[in-house]
């Protein structure tokens, strides 16, 4: 008998799955539930609005700037906050508010995209390797260990410098340098994510539903992506938020060391580096980007704490 969507089946239940075939609905519901869970924790109640504010700035910020972010106001150099320049000005009299607003987009997109790639590839490697086990797992994990034997920032510096030399055809220089930072973040994250997800997969693959999928004769990719992956969701969620906060630390640190987005595009990390020589004249020049970075990372870390609290996961150790 063929099941007709929406008609009661043998147990008398309406076939809800089939009557609402749009998977986006399920995702939206899951996201909504997750946000509601988060809002029940005190960390989430502070963290989510902070992130929302930064996301808002990242999306609409560049069009809200009171001045063009590259415009010099040489008669107003290194000024503190005033009505004319709400957050003060930098060494060329450029409006700091405008520079912060237009710098938000690049650091947030680079970190989000970089972590997304790192997490996606790392998860695929980690879960498959953990599921497969044996020799393959051994070899893959030794290679990951090899990459992890570089302190993260050293690896990032090398990859960032190396990538800087490459030239990708059909890409503008401004876009290219962002791509390199995205690659750097992803490369640093892959082995670390793979490790965490592998250990999650090792536990899950022993569970009954995975065994029965195997007995049904499901192919390996199906078990990895349709049985194990969805069940790593809580681990993955926490890992994603932790990674995102590291990504912002990494991207801004690279910017601070001069390997970020190049001038005249504003980069929060580089702004702090530039402000250091004027620190005796103007503290706002240093404090404004510092607060921008701090509130963003604090927001993400609070959400990570909230997620752990909501799903009762143990606190993570740093890597």
């Amino acid at each position: 008998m063929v099941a007709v969507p929406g008609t009661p089946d043998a147990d008398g239940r309406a076939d809800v799955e089939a009557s609402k075939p749009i998977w986006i609905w399920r995702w939206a519901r899951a996201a909504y539930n997750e946000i509601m869970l988060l809002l029940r924790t005190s960390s989430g109640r502070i963290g989510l609005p902070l992130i929302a504010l930064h996301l808002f700035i990242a999306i609409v910020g560049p069009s809200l700037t009171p001045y063009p972010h590259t415009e010099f106001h040489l008669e107003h150099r290194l000024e503190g906050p005033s009505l004319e320049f709400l957050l003060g000005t930098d060494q060329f009299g450029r409006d700091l508010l405008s520079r912060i607003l237009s710098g938000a987009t690049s650091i947030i997109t680079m970190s989000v995209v970089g972590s997304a790639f790192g997490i996606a590839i790392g998860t695929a490697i980690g879960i498959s390797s953990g599921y497969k086990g044996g020799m393959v797992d051994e070899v893959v994990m030794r290679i990951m260990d090899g990459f992890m034997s570089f302190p993260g920032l050293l690896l990032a510096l090398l990859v960032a410098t190396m990538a800087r030399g490459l030239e990708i055809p059909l890409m503008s220089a401004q876009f290219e340098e962002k791509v390199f930072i995205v690659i750097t973040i992803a490369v640093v994250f892959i082995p670390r994510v793979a490790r965490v997800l592998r250990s999650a997969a090792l536990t899950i693959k022993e569970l009954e539903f995975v065994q029965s999928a195997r007995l049904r004769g499901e192919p390996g990719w199906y078990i990895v992506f349709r049985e194990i992956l969805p069940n790593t969701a809580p681990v993955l969620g926490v890992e994603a938020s932790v990674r995102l906060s590291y990504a912002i630390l990494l991207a801004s640190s690279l910017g601070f060391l001069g390997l970020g987005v190049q001038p005249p595009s504003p980069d929060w990390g580089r702004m702090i580096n530039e402000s250091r020589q004027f620190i005796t004249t103007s503290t706002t020049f240093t404090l404004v980007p510092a607060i921008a970075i701090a509130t963003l990372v604090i927001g993400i870390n609070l959400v990570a704490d909230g997620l752990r609290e909501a799903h009762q996961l143990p606190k993570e150790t740093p890597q």
Partner: protein
Amino acid sequence: MARFFIVRISLIIVTLLFVSASIFAMTEALSGDAATAALGQGRTDENLEAMRKKLGLDDPPHVRYLNWLGGVVQGDLGESLRDGQPVGGLVFTRLGNSLLLAVFAFVVGVPTAVAVGIWTAVKKDSLIDRLFSVVSLVAISLPEFVTGVVLIIIFSTTLGWLPSSSLVQPGTSPLSRPEILILPAITLMGVLFAYIMRMTRANVIEELDTNYVRTATLKGLSYRRVVFRHAVPNAMLPTISVITINLGWMLGGLIIVESVFAYPGLGRLLLTSIETRDTPLLQALALILAAAYAISNLVADLSYAALNPRVGLN
């Protein structure tokens, strides 16, 4: 025991080989080499060729790598491509300076972090506990360069208590002016302090909730004795692995902190060596960092086994 050491030390050697080979491959892939970096704008095809010959860059890459490796085995780290000085000497003083900073931060920071962790665990949910949980959240969230500049604003430019730059005369040890160590050490320790404190607190709270601690309390032991003789030693086990994992983190932090405070250590040398494509110098520095990282992991496992009789060395 002997087997354990043989396996672990050979693993460390394999790791270091892997690190050096990948760094060599990466510097090969960098655009430009030491010759183009040294000549800068004034290069022509002829002097570039001559410079490459002089620096030994005209051999194929694998020959250069094996030559370098042969030297390292004999204790010769090669010469800097930039000024021809032996890398060993260059690295040695800087390594001393970095170690000084790291050890200072570690020796002061770790015991304080553990103490605060125990204190906040015992005073769970008190005002002081909440205060420290906010402080630790902020410390974890700030990148080292932000903590560094904020500390400079507070303690150097506003209060004028401590110097904002840790520059010393070339050839003198930072110990000649110990006050320059304080701000870099606090910055370096910030994140670690927070992690170690949170970890200690969580573990002590967990141990205080166990049956054997209740037994100890009920049989009439003083609270102090229950905490320090029963709960804390057990709580320290997982904390120790966090502390040692953090050593690796600290190495990355060093690069940033040294750059913020212009401290004459390995990190700044590393940044210069990447800029000038100085492969032998970069190799040596990366090897030191990776070796330190590998050794700290070994120390982690050893101390874990020493503290926990249930864990064997296998």
